């Protein structure tokens, strides 16, 4: 349970370890232990007795939770819980991420589930991904062999697939100082405690009455949440009053390759995406749709 001996590689790996330092955590991860944080994805998805092998509990590791401002932008520790994100004092560009945090399950889930767990689980319906994509987030990964960093868009490689290598853990999400204001909208079969059928996030920076920068993303539609470059290019430079009317299916739907599953048909998802995006643009440019 106490982990110093793992650094030397001499100890036999216990079934469960909750280390205090990142160095210890990485040594344990390197020996094949399964990382866990809030367990809100891991438990419902696993038959607990079948949760075989050693478990690496990340919730006690110093420096892995909390939100701080650094000279490279905002740093969200991987083990930061959604409840903390929802209540954090962050610039308006993060409003979409904070709104998404309040929609992850219910408060009981937000008090346990973490940002890192949401990204590493890589569900197509992970509510954290679209707002972080619109913030141009990068992820910081670490293993006993060293650290590396990549864009979040490259990290999530498919449904339940990520770029994490054997023995590697996600340590933080880095968001460079983002401009403008963000927003998030989620469509589910009811209003609370529900998996998204479609969710959309947007961020718009307005200067001189025009859209200076636009970033939009749709999730739960395709195997991996996507950014919408065609829409972003079409909105850039428009007077704010014209922005919402410019949103049309041709700028959104081709980027999605929408899926059909038990929650919705592809056609419904595509149509709903366009409606959500139009509402986001209207809200972010001060109009109504």
């Amino acid at each position, binding site marked *: 349970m106490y982990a110093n001996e793992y650094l030397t590689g001499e100890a036999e790996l216990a*079934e469960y370890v909750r280390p205090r330092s990142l160095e210890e955590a990485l040594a344990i991860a390197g020996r094949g232990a399964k990382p866990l944080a*809030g367990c809100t994805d891991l438990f419902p998805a696993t038959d607990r007795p079948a949760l075989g092998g050693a478990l690496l509990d990340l919730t006690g590791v110093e420096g892995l939770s909390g939100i701080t401002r650094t000279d490279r932008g905002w740093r969200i520790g991987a083990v930061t819980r959604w409840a903390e994100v929802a209540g954090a004092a962050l610039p308006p560009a993060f409003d979409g991420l904070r709104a998404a945090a309040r929609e992850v399950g219910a408060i009981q889930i937000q008090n346990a589930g973490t940002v890192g767990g949401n990204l590493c689980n890589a569900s197509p319906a992970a509510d954290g991904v679209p707002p972080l994509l619109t913030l141009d987030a990068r992820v910081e990964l670490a293993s006993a062999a060293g650290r590396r960093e990549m864009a979040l868009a490259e990290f999530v490689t498919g449904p339940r697939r990520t770029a994490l290598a054997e023995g590697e853990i996600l340590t933080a999400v880095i968001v460079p100082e983002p401009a403008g204001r963000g927003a998030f909208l989620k469509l589910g079969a009811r209003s609370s405690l529900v998996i998204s059928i479609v969710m959309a996030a947007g961020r718009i920076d307005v200067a001189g009455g025009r859209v200076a920068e636009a970033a939009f993303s749709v999730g739960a539609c395709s195997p991996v949440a996507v950014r919408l470059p065609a829409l972003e290019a079409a909105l850039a430079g428009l007077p704010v009053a014209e922005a919402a009317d410019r949103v049309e299916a041709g700028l959104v739907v081709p980027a999605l390759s929408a899926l059909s599953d038990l929650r919705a048909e592809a056609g419904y998802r595509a149509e709903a995406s366009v409606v959500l995006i139009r509402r986001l643009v209207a809200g972010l440019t001060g109009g109504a749709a």
Partner: protein
Amino acid sequence: MTYVLNLTINGAAQAIALDDPRVTLLDLLRERLHLTGAKKGCDRGQCGACTVLVDGRRINSCLTLAVSLDGVEITTIEGLAEGETLHPVQQAFIEHDGFQCGFCTPGQIMSAVGLIGEGQAGTDPERIREGMSGNICRCGAYHGIVEAVLDAQATFQDGVKRKTA
């Protein structure tokens, strides 16, 4: 390997030895400690019947590894009343018919205590409903539950005012 954790449960400090680190807090409470107030409705985070407070935060005990909780303070429904005197939230659930079969009730009450502690819900019934959305009631006693939470919250604020006055 045996894992020893030190917990405070409903005010009493306890040292608990676990042989299996995969035991959830819910199973520990119900099967080892015979605190059967927290209920196992779904065992996957979806119903809230297992809600307890960990250091004042409400969580689903079915999704929590007991072994990860070394050093924390846990409050369950059994820890709310003081002797024969019910906790104001318990009292309010009775007065407002906040239950029918009662299966979800311990979770509802613990969630309501957590919600009031968070101090975010205000007096808007819609925000109470949203704040309580992690607790499902199959009997549909939602109307009484919201009334009970509003009433209990008012009682608390009243009490705080009187204390500070």
